[in-house]
């Protein structure tokens, strides 16, 4: 399910290239092979025929009828109206589309919506509590000015929350390494590290 950024076997050895290879090979191919195998067994189905998809997003059930090729990112943005998750490359290079699937950070642009069924999906819109109180990571990003244009920010924050929960925020070096799948062209990186250091303590208390 999905593409975990925490699949690195070598501690501290995750870079964006090995990450890309791992995700592309590890996750996409089996799905395609499976689909092809199913096609071979029965009469060729119209690959464009819409499919019913049930997703649970930010605690709400959504019933959708989608082109099977629709990514989780495009589903969120174009079919559910949740535009907080951003499209920065649509090929798993920038991290702006990062969401949590069952608590694991996932690139929603490399995840088909059909693959996310039966899971709990959390987007940036679902991070603050319903009374409007910000998640400690959101507040820390404000306090440390951990963004400028703000476009990569939803992905950075979702990734940062997962980074802390994975136990990969112990040292500055760890934070830098495990946050390197989220590009920030404005280059707020030192402030992002500072924000995660602040939020990890508050997340521990909570």
């Amino acid at each position, binding site marked *: 399910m999905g593409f975990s950024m925490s699949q690195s076997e070598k501690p501290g050895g995750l*870079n*964006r290239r090995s990450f*890309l290879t791992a995700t592309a090979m590890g996750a996409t191919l089996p799905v395609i092979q499976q689909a092809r195998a199913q096609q071979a067994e029965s009469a060729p189905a119209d690959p*464009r025929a819409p499919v019913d998809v049930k997703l649970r997003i930010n605690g709400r059930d959504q019933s959708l009828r989608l*082109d099977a*090729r*629709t990514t989780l990112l*495009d589903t969120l*943005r*174009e079919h559910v*109206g949740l*535009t*907080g998750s*951003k*499209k*920065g*490359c*649509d*090929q798993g*290079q*920038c991290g*702006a589309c990062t969401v949590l699937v069952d608590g694991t950070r996932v690139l929603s642009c490399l995840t088909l919506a059909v693959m996310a069924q039966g899971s709990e999906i959390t*987007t*940036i*819109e679902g*991070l*603050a509590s319903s009374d409007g109180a*910000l998640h400690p990571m*959101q507040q820390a*990003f*404000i*306090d*440390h*000015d*951990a*963004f*400028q*244009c*703000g*476009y*990569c920010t939803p992905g950075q*924050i979702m990734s940062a929350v997962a980074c802390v929960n994975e136990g990969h925020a112990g040292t500055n*070096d760890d*934070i*830098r*390494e495990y946050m*390197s*799948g*989220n*590009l*920030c*062209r*404005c*280059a*707020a*990186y*030192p*402030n992002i*590290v*500072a924000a995660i250091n602040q939020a990890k303590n508050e997340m521990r208390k909570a």
Partner: protein
Amino acid sequence: MSAAAPEPKANMGQPVPRYDAREKVTGVARYASDQQVSQPAFAFLVTSAIARGDITSIDERGAREVPGVLDIFTHRNTDDLTQTKYGQQGGGASTSIQGLGPEIRHDGQIVAMVVADTFENAREAAYRLKIGYSEATPSASFESAGTEMKDANGIMSVATQAKEWLSTGDVEDALSKAAVTVDAEYSTPTQHHNPIELFTTTCSWQGDKLTIYEPSQFVFGLKNAVAERIDVAPDNIHVVSPYVGGAFGSKAQMTPRTGLVAYAARKVGRPVKLVATRDQGYTISTYRAETRHHVRLGSDRDGRLVAYSHEGFEITSRPDSYSVKGTEETAHLYSFGAVATKVNVVHADRNTPGFMRSPPVVPYVYALESALDELAVKLRMDPVELRRKNDGMKDSFGKEWSSRSLMTCYDQAAEAFGWSKRNPEPGSMRDGEWLVGWGCATAVYPTHNAASAARVSLRSTGEALVQIAVHDIGTGAYTVIGQLVASELGVPVEKVRVELGDTLLPAGPVAGGSVTTAAAGSAVLKACAQIRTRLIGGASSGDGAPLAGVPDGQIRLREGRAVAQDGRSEELAKLFERLGQNQIEEYAEFVPAGASSNAMERLYQGKPTFVGGSNGEKLMYSLGAEFVEVRVNQRTREVRCPRAIGAFAAGRILNTRTTHSQLMGGMIWGIASALHEKTELDEKRARYVNDNIAEYLIPVNADIRDIDIILVPEIDNEVNPVGVKGLGELANVGTAAAVANAVYHATGIRIRDLPVRIEALLA
């Protein structure tokens, strides 16, 4: 206070958090492609597979078989789009190459756009479109046959109106007599802005009115250029761009996609949404072209410069003469003695380059500051002292600086860095298997100004609203404009609402040339002054006025009250009540000295006017000094940059937080310029090879360690009414030279071609 929000020093404002912070951390901020339109159709671009030649066939059959395809736009059915004038000086079109064929003039030229009911169907149909070409051999870059080189003299650029190259004295004579000389060639690579937000456009028609949702650095420019392109009245076009997901110059002008999407939306009768792919972004917008430099410096034995000669070469497209002409800036930087400059453009089969963060100074200052370091080595002189020796309040042309704090920047940064512990001998400083190198260089950026309008209103409740069509591209414009209004009207910053990035608002300049705060701020000051005049006039007169008889000049607006010098005051609400008004609204237009009298009219027509830099009576520039440490692995030769310190002086600082982020991000851009970024070009086919953000290396978090920013207090009341010099494009200048100079110090190897790569250090 934290590192991100430094304690304000003299002439610096409070580090209030960003106005748009909550929207940005909650995902509520609506960037262009987030805007919801009713029943959109989706567009997908097809770009050319060759750089030069002609389209010979278009087979639409496969594409048309895809269900949901609404239309396919090619050169065959779009020839009624108007060719729009290339915006040489900003505004207007980013390129003359606007048609979808049949002639192909660069790699990745838009040749078709498919519109379908879903994104998935549009994408599939686009891949099924078969386009045949006859291919001619393209000229890719400097080394290619078939390029055409021209003297760039007379080519107008945004900030330079010079008709002759800057020169003074006899450079050849001075060089021949100089005790020490440097004669070196440098080069900088092709770079792409790569904002994380893709190039998107959504167009929606209601009758003959068009709304464009597109990330823009110049909404009035876009509005007027699209109007020309699709032949409608500008008044019928509304551009909405409240948030921009990074731009760095790439969203300053109208690129060919926008008119096409507007055209398609009209044709298919429903809104059309385009989100171009990352690789398409490399060719459908602009970029920083590769440059070459021949620099000669001469000095006496004590390091006093006697000659500076700099010839630059810049790549541009076939039809357009884009040129940054950085010698127009570098020639003023020090007291050089004799100066000779020249810039050439080289036309190749490439897309037209354009503004990218600090266009003139990034390549040219790299070359100059590298040559200065080479001179310091030859003189056996400390590079800081070499700059001190040639620092002065007058340049070689006799022009004075409005303010110049360069050596203060050097001294503060050097001390923080520990520069005095540097052993100047190359390769002398080591830490285990790492060779340690320390280098420094100057950062400089011209202080521009431009025309801007603004509307400000103040309500009896103490709430204020400020509206200007300037753009917050991550700079902090929302925040500092709100702060200015708050301090001018004496209300809390939380009570100021700021509206930007929309053509329904009073016109503001392009978010370019680091001009926004100077221009918009000056217009805001003017509008606020008009409000104050009306309020204070009312406060000092009328029945029952507590401040009756107090001269207007002795009344201030403070903390929601009109306050006299003697301490008497009247609450804002009471004052409004006495005036019989709920709110006061004022519109103001600011036109800077030196701008044409019709600058405001031109601004509303989408044409920018820039003044400042070296064009006025005095030299107006932001300055800084940057120090970096590099570590070069003795065996693998990998290069790391563990720390960098920059000290910057840019006049008044309105917000130390947003300023710190601008400068920090800028220095990281500079490190990236030195060590990472290069768009690789297939020299045979004139195509970009690494057109994605995994292979085009922009820094990731793990590439960056300690970046220390020092804000140097500076007061300059001559630059503009606000007293700000502009700093969005300051800190990424000079960094590449500082890194290359540090690499020399670590290894003894002088890198004259950026970026610094391992293979160049495997000597």
